[in-house]
């Protein structure tokens, strides 16, 4: 062990280093690496699922929007059928042509 313990000593202490390494090494290096890589694969799969789900949601939303727009355009462009007049409409609606003169006079004389 180096006896120099100045704060500006820039050299690693090999004895402290070796002792600490022994104290902190947990072993099973390959097993740990395999565990991290397996978890990384799971994360990748999860992130791909999330991407696909996001695209699927966007796709559904876009399809609904397109369907609504198409329905609106088609519905607006079609000519509307003339409405059939009901009986009260026919009775109450004013005539589009002026009544004959004799009819007007007859009604005046009658009153």
């Amino acid at each position, binding site marked *: 062990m180096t006896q120099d313990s100045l704060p500006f000593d820039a050299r690693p202490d090999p004895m*402290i*280093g070796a002792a600490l390494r022994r*104290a*902190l090494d947990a072993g099973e290096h390959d097993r*740990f690496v395999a565990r991290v890589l397996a978890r990384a694969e799971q994360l990748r799969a999860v992130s791909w699922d999330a991407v696909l789900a996001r695209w699927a949601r966007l796709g559904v939303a876009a399809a609904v929007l397109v369907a609504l727009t198409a329905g609106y355009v088609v519905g607006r462009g079609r000519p509307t059928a003339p409405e059939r007049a009901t009986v009260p409409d026919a009775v109450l609606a004013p005539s589009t042509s002026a009544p004959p003169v004799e009819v007007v006079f007859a009604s005046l004389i009658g009153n």
Partner: protein
Amino acid sequence: MADPPDPPQPPGEVARIGQQDETALVARAVNGDRGAFGTLVERYAATARRVARAVLGDPDDADDAAQDGMLSALLKLDQYDPRRPFGPWLLRIVANAATDRRRRRAVRRVEPLDPGFVAGGTRPDRTAERRALAQRLREALAELPERRRIAVVLFDVEGYSHAEIAQVLGIPEGTVRSEVFHARRRLRALLGDWKEDG
């Protein structure tokens, strides 16, 4: 096809892996190259585990934290600045993961002492003696402030420079020197006592 991962680096060598090589590996990993990420994990796993254990003490907790840190780094790889060394960037994430885990831990678990070393036990053989020293070193480390522990492990075990450790810890380089100095003083005293006892 992805390259097979390189064999583990000897302790202390990780800090000296060429930055160009690592930048290329990171670029490949960002683009989804599993082999490149595997190589990075292989190279840094031992260091990450030691740093996490210096923070947490418990080996299982430390492995969980090291794993969390490495996976977090994988998700953040696109944020890594390739002009800077990769090791300190990764180890900062690992150290933060370990610190977070320590804060969340409700009850601190203590590793049981080797039965051969409890008072009145039989005289330990050499292997058991080493294990006992390791146990005492871990206990001594646990008494140090967290930043001091990480600093001395990165400096004396992993071979990082004061400047690189300053990046990991986010503190000035002069503070790193001071932390290493105080940690060494404590550990040297312990090792000295151990020799005298032996």
